[in-house]
């Protein structure tokens, strides 16, 4: 019932992409053909149009009220056809590269394609990880929950001995968000130290000590989950910060390349 964009219509766009790549490989073995003027121009025009169409995905993605094909079909085509510039352009350039604007356009395109491939891999791998890490509820609610636990810990610290209270402070690190940063800087040890001190605590109020043990242990686990979630989410979103801007850079470079060719041929 659920059909992944990668499997869309029994891999329709993968099959088309494979056909094009195969044709391109055959062409690459025949220099007399690919050096012909009309083939060079043809490949160039096809590649440029393909790149413009690939960039148009950004527009299609935001057209929410369309009743056309589902977005996953577009993404499927985007992912599989997006690989093609990587193989078409070198043949178009007759495998001649140099320190010039033409090669820059190709390098940028290659980075965009490779980052896109990374994205596809991340899309396939990370969702399951996210579910496994934390299957239920809203992150926002969890952060509120951590805030409440912090407040309760701060209230309870009055009932334990001062040195233990200091360790509890260190473990809390002041608020959920600062705590996250503190943990990343290696303060995870602070929670462990606080837990150990609480375990050995004899002077403070018994009930408060027990409650603090439970709360800090819960907090440590949940914060681990939250951090993992944020990290995974950062990967899922983060590759786009390379992919999307460089795609426009690549398009700009291609435009320059086309202008230069038309002006100085």
């Amino acid at each position, binding site marked *: 019932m*659920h059909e992944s964009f990668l*499997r*869309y219509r029994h891999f329709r766009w993968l099959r088309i992409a494979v056909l094009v790549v195969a044709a391109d490989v055959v062409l690459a073995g025949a220099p007399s053909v690919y050096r012909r003027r009309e083939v060079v121009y043809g490949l160039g025009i096809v590649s440029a149009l393909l790149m413009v169409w690939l960039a148009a995905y950004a527009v299609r993605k935001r057209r929410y009220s369309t009743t056309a094909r589902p*977005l996953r079909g*577009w993404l499927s085509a985007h992912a599989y056809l997006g690989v093609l510039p990587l193989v078409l352009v070198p043949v178009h350039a007759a495998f001649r590269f140099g320190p010039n604007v033409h090669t820059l356009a190709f390098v940028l395109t290659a980075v965009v394609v490779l980052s896109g491939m990374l994205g596809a891999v991340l899309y396939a791998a990370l969702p399951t990880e*996210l*579910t496994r890490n934390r299957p239920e*509820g*809203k992150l926002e609610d969890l952060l509120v929950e951590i805030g409440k636990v912090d407040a309760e810990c701060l209230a309870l610290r009055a009932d334990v001995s001062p040195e233990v209270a200091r360790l509890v402070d260190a473990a809390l690190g002041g608020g959920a968000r600062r705590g996250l940063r503190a943990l990343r800087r290696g303060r995870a040890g602070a929670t462990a130290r606080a837990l150990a001190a609480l375990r050995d605590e004899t002077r403070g109020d018994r009930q408060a000590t027990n409650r603090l043990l439970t709360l800090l242990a819960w907090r440590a686990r949940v914060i681990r989950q939250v951090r993992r979630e944020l990290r995974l989410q950062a990967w899922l*979103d983060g590759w786009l910060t390379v992919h999307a801007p460089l795609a426009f850079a690549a398009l700009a470079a291609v435009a320059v390349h086309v202008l230069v060719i038309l002006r100085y041929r």
Partner: protein
Amino acid sequence: MSRFDVVIVGGGPGGLSAGAQAARRGLAHVVLERGAKIADTIQKYHRGKLVMDSPAQLRLQPAHPLRFAQDTRESVLDGYEQAVAAARVDVRLGHEVTAITGERGAFEVTALDRSAAGAGEPPRVTFACAAVIVAMGTQGNVRKLTDRRPKPPLATPGRDLPAIVYQLDDPAAFREQTIVVVGAGDSAIENALALANPGAGNTVYLVYDREGFGNARTANRAAVERAIGEKRVTFLANTTIARVEDAGGTCRLFLEGPEDRQIEAHRVICRLGADPPRDFLATAGVRFRSRDLRERPERNATFETNKAGLYVIGATGDADLIKKAMNEGFELVERLCGEPVVPMDVERLQRHVAAPLGARGATDDEAVAAAVERIRTTVPLFADVSALQLRNLLFNDCEVTRPAPGTKIFGAKEFGSDLYVILGGTVEVALGGAEGRRIAVGTGEFLGELSLFQDGYHAGSAFAGPGCVLLRVPRNRLLQSAGSAPSIRAKLDLAFALRRLQNLFEPALAGADPARLAALRARLAVLAEQAELRTWPRGQEIFREGAEADGLYVIRRGSVAVTLEQGGARAFLAFRPAGSVVGEMGALAPDRRRTATLVATAPTETVRYDQPGVVALLHDFPELVAALRNLETARLIENGAHIGRSNADDLVALLRDAGAGEATNILLIDDALCIRCNNCETACAATHQGIPRLDREAGRTYASVHVPTTCRHCGNALCMSDCPPDVIHRQPNGEIAIDLSGCISCGNCERNCPYGVIQMQPFHPPTFLDRLLGRAPGGEHGKEFPVKCDLCAGLGGTAACETSCPTGAIVRVDPAAYLDEVLDEV
């Protein structure tokens, strides 16, 4: 003793209307009201309650001396007070009528006059009159404490003690007291909760002699279950109050149930519902159609009972809406004065019922009466209701049509829950399945009873036959009528029980000797008549693997999951929606034992055909075994494919807890594909004035299926169950839609939704100008409206969330189809 033209018993909307018109016509009249103020039932509403003026399509008689429009309790009561004073209506407050004797032209109405303050027996007053109008409503006849275990039930000894009361005026008056509330309906729950307010320090018991809160509104049920969980209220189910003894200021209750106990209570508040004042009317000589306590008195089209000169109007009749009762009062007095009066329902009935039916009469009024009579005599379903009851039903959005032969009435898998009654000609029904059986259904029969119980799609298609005349009755209207006409309900129940048996077994006798078919039909009718109807709460086990089979079941409403125990693990075998036959294996197995476990995955109703009856039927008609065996083998093959998977817990939870078991269209996200980009929510907001109706992150995950917070478009949706203006309806595409133009912002739908998918938002429905200019509607003026998924009604069948999902993680599906596919995939 003075003599009156007419004595009106009851000073509510109906009685006051009759009184005001009698005053205007110069009749010698008197209105006897038992309460200390007029309109006692409305007085008992809580402060500030909005009094509804539904139905919208019925207008008040233009010459009516009183006015009435939807307003707060206080304004409505003020309006009545002023109008009654202006019209010089002779209202006697504090007069409780105890007897009506005599004949037309010479009645005597006896009342106790409690208006004069003073100790001792109130004086008895008698009014002589030519005609009596009874407009008592039902709230004056609340059900009293009764021991329902013996048949017939017995009055509970001690039920007239002063500590036992039937209403709660001011919960704040009770502090540090022990109070027993009897009942489990909405008013019982509301009273118990008000008394259990923690600040008051009361000890509150809720006692009921049956199972639980089946008849209460969802919001009330949830609130009382919470209070019970928090021990603010002690609930004693299946507990009967055997007797009550006076204990000097308090009373002692002797309870019998799962645990016998005594409670000493300061106050006992009984909220057991109300009935028409049957005993009172019966003593006056009025007949009722059946012995059912909900039954209304017999009355003819002019509201006259079998007792000449004695008239019944308002809720004691079946005009249970204020506007209807007011019109009845006005129309009756006009007729008594010999003035011509056209009932307000004639125009609509003439246009939508009488004219298309071809009924004729000298006036529209007579044509309508003829049409009603013709329908009543043609259709056995309506044979036992009065012409007035039928007329009220027909007025409520019913429609007569004459479709050309071959026209599709409804198609298989199309949503619709109207009942179609055949008034003439035939209808051809095509049932699903390979054989493509077509059955002709004749005049007087009806179609669509399955979707009447389970609001969902039709199982088969129906086409108009030659000479077809159809009456379309909307589902909720029929169910409302069935409440005051028990005969309709009973006939629908029986029809359902019989139809399912016929559908199952009759094909097996196709082409057989007609005598044998007739014999089978007679047997099925007996089986259907003896069938047992039962309701099951969500999650309840209906039967367990290995238990002795107690018969064949049909799911009438809700849905069930079939599971099988295997070495400690539980395999999910099948999901069976409403309409399915289940338990056939137990009926066929040589040892007559259950081969699987059945769990209700939504609030469910089953019809059970008794095992000995089924076994005897199969014995006498061996050819039927094949029909059941076909069903069984198909299911065994299906089961075989699923045995060995221990997925039952997740799938049952998905059905039972996440609402897939009652959904008709649910949004499911495959967590393995979802990249959490929220494009679905963004798309939802972008296509719905910026307010998303979907919360992706919220909601639970079952195995790897995530059910976000958004509308499931439930069958038998609870949001619809308590919408005062009745503006929530299912659309033909299955969408549960709220018509915001009629919405009164009460928030009931939001509270009643078990899945939290409706949000009240400061949102203004698009006005005509907005539509014309194609602009976004402006926010309004402190008012909030319910916002929920509309299946992207404007996008022609594609849901924006689904089409905007880049990875294909989202599907919006019929859960039955989804489960079929999921079970086959793995």
